[in-house]
Structures are given as structure tokens and as C-alpha cells.
């Protein structure tokens, strides 16, 4: 198999790059070892930064965020909720930092308007009464799944190819170039060899490991950031703590929920990242000073992402490492067709893609201007199901009496599942519960899949999407996957819910029994 550009990694950067290159008329193939946004692109706040967060630590990143945030609000409005944001400080917060904040914002060109404290509490009644400073900024929330899926959809229309569940097994190197890339399907084990003019390593936290396969050293440190989701939306605007970056500084509203985060914990390997009970405790204990209701809120799930820290000062604090991106042309190390793009932020993904694509064109001797800076991102109809309350709207207006709701918490109808299954088939991705979950709201409500998962699994079987044993294994994997995020937030009502889930899946269905024994589990 041949392609002009091989992109490794299906996160925001990789999918954004696929679209950028495809719009420039380049042929590209994107390979992803799991599914879209499996890494930090799916494990973040969904925060469209105004830049104010970085005015002290990284003015350059602040400026980039502001510019890109403005662009995205115009170009991809369907992925963004223009919530606006607040920076607030409470009694006990660093007053020196508070005093410097407006000046720093001005210097970085980030708009910030001082608010009267009463006004701030009227705007956001959940804020603490011990407020001592408040500024309005232009933060927003962004749906990273929809963003990546839309990028991919348009890239596909322009001829880009996608292989999910496909990992790089080896690079074959000769004459200072990667001659071919050996790929392996992680589900079937089948291998495939691809020749590409140029290879982009957009593997995010895994970029160092991918570069290592090519014999290169790209030192990456891993910083795990965990977040928790409240059952109900608690704020209208993004609320940031006005202080040097710490654990639970930001509460981002998104659709029907709010997301609190994040921690920053150094881990050894990006594959081994799970949110823990300790992190959740630290965050709630910390954030309740800013928003007291967070102490008693019901949380439905936790999750985490791994930030790749490239070029971290040894022994320094991870949060102080630049959140700007790193674009490495490996010609300098003797590989002329290999580029690494990593780091950065969700807000700046487009810029990262643009700069990378510019470098690709340089390498190939092509003069093709970037179009993503001006062309709006089309809203693809097959990926609209990640939007909270989007599915019920389509279902209600569809008026199809035969269209059953399969997921009751989030009201996802059979027609939504069918449309996702079709889209997955077109992309050659196995239509299992995990893949459907990533592209819709199933399993994201309060039952976290206890009831809808067996129903949808049985329905997928009926439609011939999977065999009997795949149905059970797929269900088990889905529940296991949901559990990682549930386990640290199990107390109160959510613990009762988990008890019911275990009664059904273990007590009744016996899914904890020996796996893979057909008919005996």
C-alpha cells in the first residue's frame, strides 16, 4: 500500500492534520492504534481556552490560545458552546497573583474584564460567598469527539483513508529515510506494509514511543490529569480559579454536565493511566472553596488523559513546562521523511496541524496554502450523536413510531445506533459497544450502561454485527471500560447504581465467570 503522507495517531492533532492535508490536495492515511481520541484528545476538559490561564506561565501559549479560540468559534461553531468564562479568587488565594493578573492579560492581548463581586455571584450563583476577585474572559466549551470526527469526515470526503485499531509495529529504514512502515491490526493481528513519502508522528503522549521505533530519542514525560463529571450542569460559564495552576482549578460546563479538573501526576507509561480515589478526594476538597456545592454534588464518572511533556526541565514542576507544542523535523537526526508533532492543547490543534502541514509541503516541494484558517468545518450528519440532548431532539422530531429508545438515560434511539453503525462500517471500524459509545451518549448517563449496554449488545447481534461470543465479550469490555471511570466516584446514589449494575451483570448474568467459554458463562 502506498500513500503520500502517513499520519500516526487519531487524536485532535492527527485528525486535524488529515483534514488540513486533504484540503491541500495531499493523499494521506491516518492510522490509530485504538479508536479516535483514545488519548488526551478524549481525556480533557473540552475547554476552549481564552488564553487567560497561561498569561503568567506561558504568554506565547496564551496568545496562541486566544487567536485559535477566536478562529474556532467562527469556523466550527457546532462543536463549541460560547459559554464565556470567569476567573475567580476566594479568601486565602495568592493576592499578589490576583493583582498581577489584569496586567498580564493585557500584555498577552487576552481580554479580561473586572467584575463586581455581586455581579459575578449573580452570573454564577454556585460561586462561594468568600469571593475576593472576579474577571470575565472569553472561554468556551468544545466537544472534542465531534471535532475530531468532523475533521475526519471532511478529510475522508477529500480522499483521506483511516485505519483504526492499527498500530505501528516497525519502521524499515534505509538511505536516511523510512522506506516502509509495518502496521498491525490490533484486533485481528494481520499486518500490512505501507510506503509513504513522509511520515508524521502525531501520537501525543505516545510520540516518544513511536519515535523510539524509528531509533530516535524524543524524551517525553507523562503527566496524568484526572477529571470528574457532575450529574447536573452547575455553571453557565467556565469557572477558573484565579491562581497559579493547581489541582482542581477549572469547572467547565458542557451540555448537561459540568467537568471539574485537573490533577497533574507524573506516571511511568501512558498506557497505565487511571483516575484514582485519592485524586478525586484532592480535587473535591480543593474545589469546594471556589464552589461549595461541589462537595455534595453527585458525580457520574471520572476519567483522565496523559499530557506529553516534551523537553521538561529535569526535576522541575510539570505544570510549568510549556503547554505550547513541539514540532520536530527529524532530518536533523538523519531521517529525512519523519516529523513529530506533539504537546500543545486542544484549543491550538488547528495551528499545530497547519504548521505540520506547512512543513510537509516544504519537504515535498509543494506550494499549497492552508485552508483550515478560512474554510469552515462542515458538520457531518453521521457524527452528531455526541451532543448532549442531541439524540432525543432528533428522535422526537423524527416522529417514527418504530424508532425505539435503546438508551433511556440519554434517550438514544435505535435510528442513532443504526446511523453510527453504518458510518463505522464505511470506515472499516468494528461496530462494537465501545466504538458506538465513543460516537454517541450511550453509557454516559446515570446508569453508565448497566441497562442499555445489554440491550444494545443484543440488538447488534440481531443485526449481524457480531457473533454470539463477540456480543458477550463486547458487553464485558464495555462494562469494564466504564468501570475505570466509575470506580473512583462510587459513593451515595452512584454507589447504589453500581450495586444494581453488579447485581444484574454478575448476580444474574454471571459475566464475571470464566471468559471465552461459549455457552458456559
Amino acid at each position, binding site marked *: 500500500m502506498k500513500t503520500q503522507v502517513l499520519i500516526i495517531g487519531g487524536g485532535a492533532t492527527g485528525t486535524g492534520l488529515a483534514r488540513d492535508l486533504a484540503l491541500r490536495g495531499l493523499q494521506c492515511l491516518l492510522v490509530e492504534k485504538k479508536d479516535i481520541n483514545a488519548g488526551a484528545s478524549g481525556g480533557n476538559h473540552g475547554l476552549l481556552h481564552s488564553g487567560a490561564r497561561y498569561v503568567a506561565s506561558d504568554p506565547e501559549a496564551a496568545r496562541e490560545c486566544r487567536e485559535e479560540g477566536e478562529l474556532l468559534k467562527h469556523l466550527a461553531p457546532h462543536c463549541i458552546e460560547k459559554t464565556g468564562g470567569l476567573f475567580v479568587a476566594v479568601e486565602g488565594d495568592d493576592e499578589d497573583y490576583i493583582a498581577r493578573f489584569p496586567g498580564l492579560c493585557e500584555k498577552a492581548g487576552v481580554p479580561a474584564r473586572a467584575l463586581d463581586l455581586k455581579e459575578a455571584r449573580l452570573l454564577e450563583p454556585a460561586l462561594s460567598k468568600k469571593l475576593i476577585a472576579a474577571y470575565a474572559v472569553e472561554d468556551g466549551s468544545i466537544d472534542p469527539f465531534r471535532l475530531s470526527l468532523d475533521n475526519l469526515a471532511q478529510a475522508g470526503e477529500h480522499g483521506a483513508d483511516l485505519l483504526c485499531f492499527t498500530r505501528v509495529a516497525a519502521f524499515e529504514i534505509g538511505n536516511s529515510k523510512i522506506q516502509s512502515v509495518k502496521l498491525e491490526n490490533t484486533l485481528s493481528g494481520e499486518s500490512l506494509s505501507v510506503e509513504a513519502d513522509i511520515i508524521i508522528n502525531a501520537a501525543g503522549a505516545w510520540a516518544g514511543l513511536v519515535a523510539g521505533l524509528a531509533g530516535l530519542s524524543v524524551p517525553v514525560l507523562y503527566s496524568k490529569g484526572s477529571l470528574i463529571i457532575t450529574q447536573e450542569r452547575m455553571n453557565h460559564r467556565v469557572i477558573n480559579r484565579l491562581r497559579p495552576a493547581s489541582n482542581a482549578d477549572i469547572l467547565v460546563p458542557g451540555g448537561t454536565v459540568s467537568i471539574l479538573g485537573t490533577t497533574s501526576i507524573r506516571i511511568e507509561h501512558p498506557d497505565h493511566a487511571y483516575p484514582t480515589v485519592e485524586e478525586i*478526594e484532592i480535587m473535591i476538597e480543593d474545589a469546594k472553596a471556589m464552589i461549595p456545592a461541589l462537595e455534595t454534588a453527585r458525580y457520574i464518572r471520572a476519567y483522565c488523559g496523559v499530557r506529553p511533556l516534551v523537553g521538561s526541565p529535569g526535576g522541575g514542576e510539570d505544570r510549568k513546562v510549556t503547554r505550547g507544542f513541539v514540532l520536530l523535523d527529524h532530518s536533523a537526526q538523519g531521517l529525512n521523511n519523519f516529523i513529530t508533532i506533539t504537546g500543545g492543547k486542544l484549543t491550538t490543534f488547528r495551528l499545530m496541524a497547519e504548521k505540520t502541514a506547512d512543513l510537509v509541503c516544504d519537504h515535498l516541494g509543494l506550494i499549497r496554502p492552508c485552508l483550515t484558517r478560512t474554510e469552515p468545518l462542515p458538520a457531518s450528519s453521521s457524527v452528531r450523536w455526541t451532543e448532549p440532548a442531541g439524540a432525543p431532539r432528533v428522535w422526537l422530531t423524527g416522529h417514527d413510531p418504530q424508532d425505539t429508545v435503546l438508551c433511556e438515560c440519554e434517550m438514544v434511539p435505535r435510528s442513532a445506533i443504526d446511523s453510527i453503525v453504518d458510518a463505522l462500517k464505511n470506515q472499516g471500524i468494528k461496530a462494537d459497544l465501545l466504538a458506538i459509545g465513543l460516537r454517541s451518549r450511550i453509557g454516559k448517563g446515570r446508569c453508565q450502561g448497566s441497562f442499555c449496554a445489554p440491550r444494545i449488545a443484543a440488538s447488534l447481534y440481531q443485526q449481524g454485527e457480531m457473533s454470539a461470543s463477540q456480543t458477550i465479550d463486547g458487553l464485558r469490555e464495555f462494562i469494564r471500560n466504564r468501570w475505570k471511570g466509575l470506580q473512583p466516584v462510587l459513593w*451515595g446514589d452512584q*454507589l447504589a447504581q453500581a450495586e444494581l449494575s453488579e447485581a444484574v451483570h454478575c448476580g444474574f448474568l*454471571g459475566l*464475571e465467570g470464566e471468559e471465552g467459554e*461459549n455457552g458456559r458463562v
Partner: protein
Amino acid sequence: MDFWDWKGRRGKTAEFEKVNRMPERETIKADLTIIGNGLAGLGAALYALNRGLSVVQFGSGYPLSLVSGCFDLFSVCPSAGKKEWDNPWEGLKVLRNDHPEHPLARIEEVEIRQAFEEFSVGLGEAGLSYVQDPERNREIITPLGTIKKTFGLPRSMWLGAEALERKAMGRIIEIEGLEGFKAPLIVDRLKPHWKGLSAGRIQFPGFESRPRALAEHLASSLILSANREKLAQRLRREINGAEVMGLPAVLGLFKSSAVMEDLREQIGIPLFEIPTLPPSVPGLRLQETLERKAAEKGTYHLFRHRVGKAEPGKDGGFKVPILHDGETIRTVSSRAVILAGGRFLGGGLQADRKTVREPLFGLPVSQPDSRSGWHRSDFFNRQGHEINRAGLEVDDRFRPFNRQKEPAYETLFAVGSILAHQDWKREKCGSGLALATALGAVKAFLGIKNK
């Protein structure tokens, strides 16, 4: 008297009127207050009524709509090398040896047998027929085609266990619109072990144009003979040489024995039921039957009110407040209280971010040191989650301990899943635990009362 109306709802007005008509200061008097209307609470009521005790019972909703309708006794001991026991009594012997603190390990075999026997007889008298093989667990099919070991079975499921064991020529029928039950999936999974199995599909009479058929609706529609006739007609066409036919458990909600007998006669071959995902019709049948029987025998049901924090009375008994909108409106005065409120779902235990509590008496709860020890990182870990073994510690008479590890009160008992040192979901011992401890507590109370 509490009752179920024609839609199967319990008489709300009746209960409010009854309580509200009472003079303000009057208390309801009974030998026993039972808190909880799950299997343990309803079992305790039945055992108590059989022994002539007067009972007031608090409860809420239909907790048994979440159970399969089968009675698990015991089949898995997570710490033992052997995974599953065909003979529950052998399993319990191992449990007694390895886990003497397990509530079931502390009850004599003969007592457990009596609990099942007496309960089945009570259900039978009320029109719900249960069958068990006294010496072994039986296997039934689940809606995903997995196999579940269980002990006591509704007669309708017993036929399925027999068919599975004999590998009879069987046909599994799915119902259009009933989600989570796909006959071909079940057949596909069982086929390697059960050759003569095939799958069929019908439209349920009266539900043809509806996108979604709910089990309770299907079941209650069969009270009308016209619906049964149409269903039998459609099922007859699906026989295809089968000796026995398996359907999701929707064959009648009220008077289900008569409904199934009528269908069998019209179809000409036996039918068996396969339990469904909740809400479960066999569970609702249990709830209705047990509550109706208890009400007939004079149990005072308080299913529309909340129970308040109980206090010991001067005479050695308890004063239990009846709450409405958070206010105490009347009081129950009883000699003893049985806590049968289940765990977190039932409200018998409550957990916040730091700790697990028993809300009514503030009893100490045996539990892991901190929340990080509550759950394992793999949901399906065969050892089970530590939090599931948290609960109340009791003496040999099922009296929960205070902090000094002595019975907190002379006549306060705790039964069922609220107890510590068991994991009923993994050990498949939920009903055994509920019934055996309920009988044990009732007998212990009688012993104290008659002293």
C-alpha cells in the same frame, strides 16, 4: 388493609386514610416492626405471621422487580479453588470452614432447609408455585444465553431447567419489541451443548404496532382470555417439532399459574419462562403474592411513608416514627425491630465519600479503612469488591453489635444483605441469605419474647 388495584398498583389512598384517621397521639402497636420490603423483609413477615406475631412493615416501591425470581442458595465461594458447586450444601460446608464469619456459615443446614421449605409452602398457598431439588443447584438460561446456577425455581422456570438438562427438542421464542431478549443469540450460545434448540419470533397480540413492548405490560395483558387465545394461536405456529417452548418471563402477572396452564393446554406442549433483565415479571409476582398474603394475615403495611430514626421505648421495645414529608405523623410501638433494608440501593446502608453508615440506629458498620479500599480496578475481578463485604456485624441471634461488639439492643435484629462478611452477588446466595437470616431472627425474637 393495603391492596393492589386493577392496574397492580398498591392502594395509596387506603394507606393514607388509614394512618391519617388515627388520633394524633395514638400509636400503632405490634410485636414486630420490619423495615424493608425486599425478600428478607417479606420473608421475615411471612415467618413471623406463621408464628402468630403481629407485624408492621415499612417499605417502598417494588424492590423485587429487580430480581430474577429464582432463589439462589449458594454456588460460588470466591476464595475456594473450586469455582461452582452443583450441590449448595457441599459448598456451604467449605464456607463454614473457610469463612466462619459469613452469615450463612453461621446457620445450621437444617435451619436453612426449613427457611426455604416454609417459604415455598407459603408461596404455594398464595398461588405461586416454586420447586427445588433439595440436594442440588439447577441451571437456567439467561436472556444473553449465559447459564445461571440457582436453587429454588418458579415452576415455569423449573420446566426450563429440566429441558436444559435433558437437552430436549426446544424452541426459544422472542417477542418483537421486547428489548434485551434475542432468541437467536441464546440459541447461538447454547447450541454447542444443546443441539435440538432452535429460535423463533412472534408478535405479541395487542402490541403489534408498538415499537417497544414492556414485560409488565405484556404479562398483565394475559389476564384476558382473548389475548391468551391469540397468543396461543401464534405460538402453535412456532412449534416446528419442539417438545417444549421457552419464552421471556411475561406469562401472566396476576394468577400466573392459571394463565400458564391455560396457554399450555391451548398450545399442546409445555412452556417455560426465561427470566428477563429488570423490571422482572417473576419478581413482581413475588412482590404481589407476598404482600397480598401478609396483608390478608393482618400485616400493617406502611409503603407510602418513610421510617424515622427509631428510639428504644421504656418497656424494652422500640418507638419507630412514621414520617410524611419529613415530619413524624404517628409512631409505631413494637417489641422488636428487624432491619431488612438491604444495602445501598435499598437504603439500609448509606455511603458518603468517607464512610458507610447505618442511618436508622447509627450502628457501627464493618468496612474497609478508606474509600480507596472499596472497589477493585477490574469490575469483574473474581475476588469481588471489598465494599460488598461491608455491613452490620451480628451475634448468633442476628442482633447487630454496638461499638463494644455486644448486641446494641436486646430485640433489634438485622437480616439479609445488610449483614457483613458476605458478597451475595458473587456467591449467588442472595435468597438463601435473606430467607435463612429472616427465619433465624424471627425464631430468636420468639425465644426472647417467650422467656
